[in-house]
């Protein structure tokens, strides 16, 4: 790692001031992505501003048919929260599938969506549930937030404070995890909620996306057969040593079916 100065922010406004005063500073939350990046010398921040312990950024609550989760809330806390398990069990299940216990004990919701790894799990839920990302400056809708591989609508130094998830009637997440890393080769979040029937796919392509053909077909007829033979655009599918485009597209189809079955089995 290159040298940097570590500062523990005392509050959100303190973090904001520290970031503003140091243009080459970076936010540190759980560090599960940033520390490995620093170790590989892929980034050289002047300062790390640690927001991981800020109580203003933590917590889980239900407010007006929305589940509101602070950006620095750890994956473990989402996975095990009685509130999440009751109101949005699919999100608790998604969080339980991230990485491994040690990663879930440190990694946070805000860090995951700010990083927007194309194989990360949370972006699928954020998009399928039409969540709102609340930052220190504004509110951003999920469809504007994710902008392709590792890119988001966040401006330099903008801080994700919390995420508001619309609580759906029912929802499910299914992922085909890479056997070594645990990241999604394809992960599909299906939600039946206020924004209609939504199908968000992560892992398969260069960024999380909505499979609109599946959404339309399922809106007409909410059953398994509706998914048969639907087109799925291969242009942006990832292709690497782990899987071809076609294989990933097939995984996305299979995960969509599994998520649908899982969702339909709920009351």
């Amino acid at each position, binding site marked *: 790692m290159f040298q940097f100065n570590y500062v523990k922010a005392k509050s959100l406004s303190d973090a904001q001031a520290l970031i503003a005063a140091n243009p080459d500073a970076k936010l*540190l939350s759980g560090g599960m992505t940033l520390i*490995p990046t620093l170790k590989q010398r892929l980034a050289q921040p002047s300062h790390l501003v640690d927001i*991981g312990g800020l109580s203003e950024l933590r917590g889980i609550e239900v407010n007006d048919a929305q589940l509101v989760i602070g950006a620095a809330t750890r994956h473990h806390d989402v996975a095990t929260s009685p509130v999440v398990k009751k109101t949005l069990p699919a999100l608790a299940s998604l969080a339980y599938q991230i990485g491994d216990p040690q990663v879930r004990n440190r990694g946070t919701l805000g860090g995951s969506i700010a990083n927007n790894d194309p194989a990360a799990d949370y972006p699928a839920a954020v998009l399928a549930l039409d969540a709102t990302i609340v930052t220190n400056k504004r509110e951003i809708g999920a469809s504007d937030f994710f902008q392709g591989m590792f890119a988001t609508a966040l401006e330099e130094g903008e801080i994700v404070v919390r995420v508001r998830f619309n609580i759906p009637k029912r929802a499910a997440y299914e992922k085909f995890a890479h056997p070594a890393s645990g990241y999604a080769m394809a992960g599909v979040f299906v939600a039946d909620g206020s924004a209609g029937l939504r199908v968000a796919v992560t892992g398969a392509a260069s960024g999380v996306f909505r499979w609109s053909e599946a959404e339309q077909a399922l809106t007409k007829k909410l059953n398994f057969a509706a998914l048969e033979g639907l087109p799925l655009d291969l242009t942006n599918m990832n292709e690497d040593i782990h899987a071809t485009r076609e294989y990933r597209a097939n995984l996305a189809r299979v995960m969509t079916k599994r998520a649908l079955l899982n969702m339909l089995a709920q009351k």
Partner: protein
Amino acid sequence: MTKIELTVNGTTHSREVEDRALLVDVLRDHLQLTGTHIGCDTSQCGCCTVHVDGRAVKSCTMLAVQAAGADIVTIEGLSNGDQLHPVQQAFTDCHALQCGFCTPGMIMAISAFLKDNPHPTDDEIYHGLEGNLCRCTGYINIVKAVKRSAKLMK
């Protein structure tokens, strides 16, 4: 450089560390607690697992300054004097190690896991061990040791 206090295995230490120093390096090089191993240094293998405020973390993926003020337990602090911790005892009983390199991390991960989940199913055990790799025992005896630990802890 930053001056930090760490409580490790019940003793509070004060040390001046580089901001970029990893917790695992401070444990091993400053405090000579070399029971915590570095297997991969890339957050994959779990050899470096310790408890920070009661939760299992990979100490190769945490800065020592992030742990300032925290209560840390390493493999050296798990037993009660000469009396082995139930997970240590179970590893001995079930022959859950061969070279032993992964063992400290396995034991720290499992002892934390069983606190959350005292009566795990097989699937929960596999899921709970996701963060730890063993390159020689194979996992059969390690899984046996988790079950035995759960019994011993009753």
